[in-house]
């Protein structure tokens, strides 16, 4: 088999795989690369938390992408307008200004409003949940495109600034063995840091609190939950609406922490990768975080090659891959992992099923 591969490609395949593993072990502790992996994973994990809040309570949400896109727009415009009206001098850590905070709040409010629409469509009027998500995605592209033309195109200098990352002290960076790992987590902006905190918080809440138990019950067997006195409709509403907070934060991250501008369709499929992270992470926050890291590492590989080009046969193999295909790597990884994982990854039993109380007829 290996002889065949040798003959076909003139490159020992197994050798290159070993070289790749060795290269990754060497390059990931590189400060720029490890920082980039966490940074790129932030919108993915926030989006995935939104998806987990929805799907754990039995509501499919494929509208994360649209929620993120519209929140990114709302956050950017709110911060920009606040900056024009108030101006902003940074105070304290992270370069925090009043316009930036207003932007974050606007992004979160937008996320909550859009997910309230999703909740109303999928819980109250029991419309199809996948269609509801599709509507949100299409509406977000349309509405941001329309408003972009009206608000941003005439004001090219609109902008609310950008959060800065925390400078990790040398004392932490120079800790042997784990110093790079700790500083990769700490050397981030405020939204990225809170994303990690929220991920851990949701993990604990979902599996160690009364709310979590009830949420999982509602997602697995709403009828049984109803019979023990849980208000299924109300709990689903609350969770879906709260999930919008995470999507709103993810959007705010894109325009206030990742970069200080808004472009059309700037989410570029991140909401869908977040959706895949939910599935691959088996509907748990920590699992989704792992999946998000996998995807962001696939993207960061391109950065790593720029920082520290691999040598030898691995270098020639990676060098032969066109740069456009590197951009598609997270999506290819998603499909491969989904195809391989799905048998062992089971969704909440009532995911996607609208719930209606039984009544005597």
């Amino acid at each position, binding site marked *: 088999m290996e002889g065949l591969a040798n003959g076909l490609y003139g490159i020992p395949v197994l050798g290159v795989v070993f070289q790749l593993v060795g290269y990754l072990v060497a390059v990931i502790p590189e400060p720029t690369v490890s920082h980039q992996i966490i940074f790129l994973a932030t919108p993915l994990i926030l989006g995935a938390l939104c998806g987990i809040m929805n*799907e754990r309570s039995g509501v*499919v949400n*494929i509208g994360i992408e649209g929620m993120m896109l519209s929140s990114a727009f709302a956050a950017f415009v709110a911060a920009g307008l606040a900056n024009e009206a108030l101006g902003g001098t940074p105070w304290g850590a992270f370069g925090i200004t009043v316009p930036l905070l207003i932007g974050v709040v606007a992004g979160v409010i937008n996320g909550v409003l859009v997910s309230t629409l999703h909740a109303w*469509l999928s*819980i*109250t*009027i*029991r*419309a*199809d*949940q*996948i*269609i*509801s998500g*599709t*509507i949100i995605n*299409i*509406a977000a*592209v*349309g*509405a941001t*495109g*329309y408003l*972009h*033309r*009206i608000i941003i195109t005439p004001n090219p200098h609109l902008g609310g600034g950008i959060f800065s990352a925390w400078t990790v002290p040398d004392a932490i960076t120079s800790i042997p063995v784990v110093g790079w790992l700790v500083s990769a987590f700490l050397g981030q902006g405020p939204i990225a840091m809170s994303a990690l905190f929220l991920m851990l918080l949701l993990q604990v809440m979902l599996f160690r609190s009364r709310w979590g138990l009830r949420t999982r019950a509602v997602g697995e067997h709403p009828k049984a939950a109803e019979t023990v006195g849980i208000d299924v*409709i*109300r709990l689903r*509403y609350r969770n879906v609406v709260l999930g919008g907070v995470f999507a709103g934060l993810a959007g705010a991250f894109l325009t206030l922490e990742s970069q200080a501008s808004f472009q059309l369709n700037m989410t*570029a*499929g991140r909401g*869908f990768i977040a*959706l*895949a992270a939910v*599935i691959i992470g088996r509907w748990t926050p920590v699992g989704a975080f792992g999946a998000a890291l996998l995807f962001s590492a696939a993207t960061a590989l391109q950065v790593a090659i720029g920082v520290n080009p691999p040598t030898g046969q691995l270098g020639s193999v990676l060098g032969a891959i*066109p740069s*456009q*295909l590197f*951009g*598609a790597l997270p*999506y290819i990884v*998603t*499909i491969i992992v*989904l*195809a*391989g994982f*799905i*048998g062992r990854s*089971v*969704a*909440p039993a009532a*995911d*996607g*099923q*609208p719930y*209606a*109380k*039984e*009544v005597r*007829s």
Partner: protein
Amino acid sequence: MPPPQDERPPRAGRRFVPGPAALVPILAVVLAFLAGSVLILLTGFATVGHLDLLLPVTAYLALLQGAGITTDPAQATNGLVNTVVQAAPLVLGGLSVGLAFKAGLFNIGAQGQFLMGALAAAGTGAAVAGWPGPLAILAAILAGCIAGAAWGFIPGALKAFTGAHEVVTTIMLNTIAASVVGWLVTGPLLATGFSFDRTGDLGNATLPILFGTRNLHLGVLASVLAVPVIWFLLWRLTLGFEIRTVGANPSAARYAGMRPAFLIVFTMSLAGLLAGLAGSMEILGITHFMNASYGTSVGFDSITVALLGRAHPVGIVLAALLFGALRAGAGLMQIKTHIPVEIVDVIQAIVLLFIAADVIVRFVFRVRTGHGGLAELQTVTKSYGEGAVR
């Protein structure tokens, strides 16, 4: 805050008087245009500073004029041709999404299949530019169909054999298709002698323009022909019956001895072929080459068209003509009233919203009949968390 649910019987048990299937879609469109006019009023207020109550009327009239609904014969011909040319890919895309709906599948991947079809047609067309006309065109179209079908086969096979849901995989394949376009157009398919990255000239593979018009190309015929073909497949062939049975109830189909795995792969491949055909027509008939950042709204529009047309070929044609007219007329509306063309996207989303939330439509117009949604959608959403179908 959810309204009290206690008195409401479950949806399936509610008694509906059977009404015309087109009722809710038509009323949804009417309501969406009313909502759109509110948006136009607000836009006018925001940009000009005072409330111009006639602005929605002016804007919609300009839209109609651009779409060919006007008394000036030259402008009418031009506008109607534009409407038909814009509607043609939407018919094929709508059939692609609608056919998948019939099998209980949600093909969000029409976008990617369209792109792959367009790319293959552009590449093949440039390669066979010197062949005799009909042969070159046929080769390019065939390549587009195969590429689109392959891009539909992948999610179909993944769904049938691994259980990976097509909603997620087709979305991923859309982005991958855009990357493949960027790579091939700047790499292997790059033509020399142009100021920007693009594929080569089509030569004899260019579709002829009909009746001496500016842009009514022969590919429109493919859309016209595809409609009866898909109708015949779905309602006159055993295969179509099996597709519809799988869409209505996969378990029942399996117990009746049908092969859901095969039907899913077949339907997704055929859906991909239709979208790929739309892509190759667009390249061979209109743009005549492909650039690295080729973008299109056909993917999203097709979903709207299929839902608005209730996944029925005739409904899809009507819905495609509506959105073709919107796309054709929006330019003139923007020139005349400064309302951005993007309002078409907003109206599209509102139409979808009203179809999904058919309670709004029934409430506003005081009608008691008719559904907005498709029954097959339950199969789509139900399979979301489930595993392989075999």
